[in-house]
């Protein structure tokens, strides 16, 4: 990329384009941040309001999962290209982690 001898006009347009894209992306980040905060408020709100346990538990877990997906894909850029291997391994970890938690909730008796 860098070492190719581009003429300066090309470089300017490319640079402008990149600036714009970065700014665009930053706007997405801010939006996802806002969503994050909103989801958090909902979760805390649901607990503070003292709704029924069987509603609150799945609800806040769902919110957490959604929020984490936002964080992974926006803040951690997993939506960008070149993240195939990271995705594979994060999901691998998630599957194994999930199996572990499932086992500990079911077959570690008291």
């Amino acid at each position: 990329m860098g070492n190719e001898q581009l003429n300066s006009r090309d470089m300017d347009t490319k640079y402008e384009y990149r600036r714009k894209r970065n700014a665009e992306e930053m706007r997405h980040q801010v939006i996802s941040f806002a969503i994050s905060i909103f989801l958090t408020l909902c979760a805390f709100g649901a607990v503070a309001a003292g709704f029924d346990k069987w509603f609150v538990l799945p609800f806040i877990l769902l919110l957490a999962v959604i929020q984490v997906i936002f964080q992974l894909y926006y803040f951690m850029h997993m939506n960008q290209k070149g993240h195939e291997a990271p995705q594979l391994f994060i999901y691998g970890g998630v599957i194994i982690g999930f199996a572990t938690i499932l086992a500990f909730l079911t077959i570690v008796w008291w």
Partner: protein
Amino acid sequence: MSTIAQKRGFGATLWDYMTTVDHKKIGILYIAGGGFFFLLGGIEALIIRIQLAVPNNGFVSAQTFNEVMTMHGTTMIFLAAMPILIGLMNLIMPLQIGARDVAFPFLNALGFWLFFLGGILLNTSWFLGGAPDAGWTSYASLALNSPHHGVDFYVTGIQISGFGTLMGGINFLVTIINMRAPGMTYMRMPMFTWTTFVVSALILFAFPPLTVALFLLTFDRLFGANFFEVAMGGNTIIWEHFFWIFGHPEVYILILPSFGIFSEIFATFSRKRLFGYSSMVFATVLIGFFGFMVWAHHMFTVGLGNIANAIFAVASMAIGVPTGIKIFNWIFTMWGGSVKFTTPMLYAAGFIPSFVMGGVTGIMVAVAPADYQFHDTYFVVAHFHYVIVGGVVLAILAAVHFYWPKMFGTMLNETLGKIEFVLFFIGFHLTFFIQHFLGLMGMPRRIATFLDDQGLNTGNLISSIGAAFMAVAVLILLYNIIMTQVKNVRVGNDPWGDGRTLEWSLPSPPPFYNFKQLPLVRGIDTYWIEKMEGKQEVTPAEPVNDIHMPNGSIFPVFISLGFMIASYGAIFRNDHAWGDPVLIIGLIVAFGSMLLRSLKDDHGFHIPKSELVDKKDKGVKA
């Protein structure tokens, strides 16, 4: 930094090895360190077998027996088999994919030193009040009940060397993904590289549960936590789950690289490409995946419930399918080939019936209700030695003979090699076959001795005699190694004559930068393809250029030493006032070294093109 090891004093060589970041030297360090621990573990095995040769034997006390037995299992798995295999991966995998080094040479060195010093830490327990005595599984209730410091050494020593392994795993993954030579697509990678890849993924996911489990036990024993204190609300089953969530993948971490080694050997000495390459890859991945879903088959008698037992039983059996695919693919690699029985090939041939016998007993113990009988008896001991010794150890011995010329540029004696094989093979079956019956005849495992008149005498005696055969075989191997290095007859690139993959296109041993020009890979078994076209060298993918190489560093040793010191502090903190300060000092040394390392810029160095061209004229022979 140094370029090529020339004639230098012992101190300089030592320093060179302590600071090296060259994957080949680190590989050799791993193999030497692992080999050392293999001898220790082997001596421990011999003590076990001497003690159990006759009933009511008093060769060692019951307590000592438990320590020896625990250390045998722990040493063999964590400090011998796995490091030797990691050493082979280090040594061979970058050569196979046409890379100049691994992705993180520094981490590579750090990984070795963590493993080695962790292992030394663990073994110093013998002199500091007693070795761990709760079995290699260190089940929590017994581990907490163990009065002396052995278990503390276990948790810290394994923790440290575990970190090293984890680093190795990440390193290999990145190396394989990012640093393959031009043309080396995934489906052209040699089988050993594929198994390295899958095993690294297993390491990445299997070690964190062990890390957590070891931390929990450390906190319980040394810092007053209550994870496993039943009276305080703790639960010991947590340990069992963690240990086996790690432990089962661990056994595949051992066997998959062994499969990789055998795949190379079968193809090489049959002069035929690996039969069903893509199904081999698929089977490897599948075994790796299933490996995580069957851990509770070690816990059938714990009382997890019928549903759990049934699910885990069937899931465990399923692993027989991909493994079977591999077995038959190997047989059909040889089928129609031109099979030459060199020493490595003998080991590979001995592996097939031995491993299959171990594998099928694996399926038998996976039959949950039958396992109520098998579990914790010598039947299980027989099962896992059949797969481990008949699979992993045979693979290691095969690889040592196979790759010795690549490592040191000289060949181990073939006649001695064949004698070793015969003795080892006989000894192995003699030792472990009979143990199936002992187990069924009512002999639990981990017993320090057995009473007379229970019908167990003959079987145990036979088993002990077998162990002696193995010991003789190992001694001959040591003799062979020494004689070979003394004679030091140099060999060329492809000493077996049938090499197929890139490592055989390089000089033996390869120059420290491996490839002067990165090779262009034109298919599976590139070097074979080129040879068949009558060429001596692999087509290069680039002109001769400056080569960028990393600098050596002593920090890995310091960091590892820091953790070692910290461990001593932690182990003795409840007995001695110096414990906590030493713990803190150790951590400062470790993290301080890390900080220093990261503050210091290290851009490596370049080997100028001129020097490389020069080499060519002289001919690269180290």
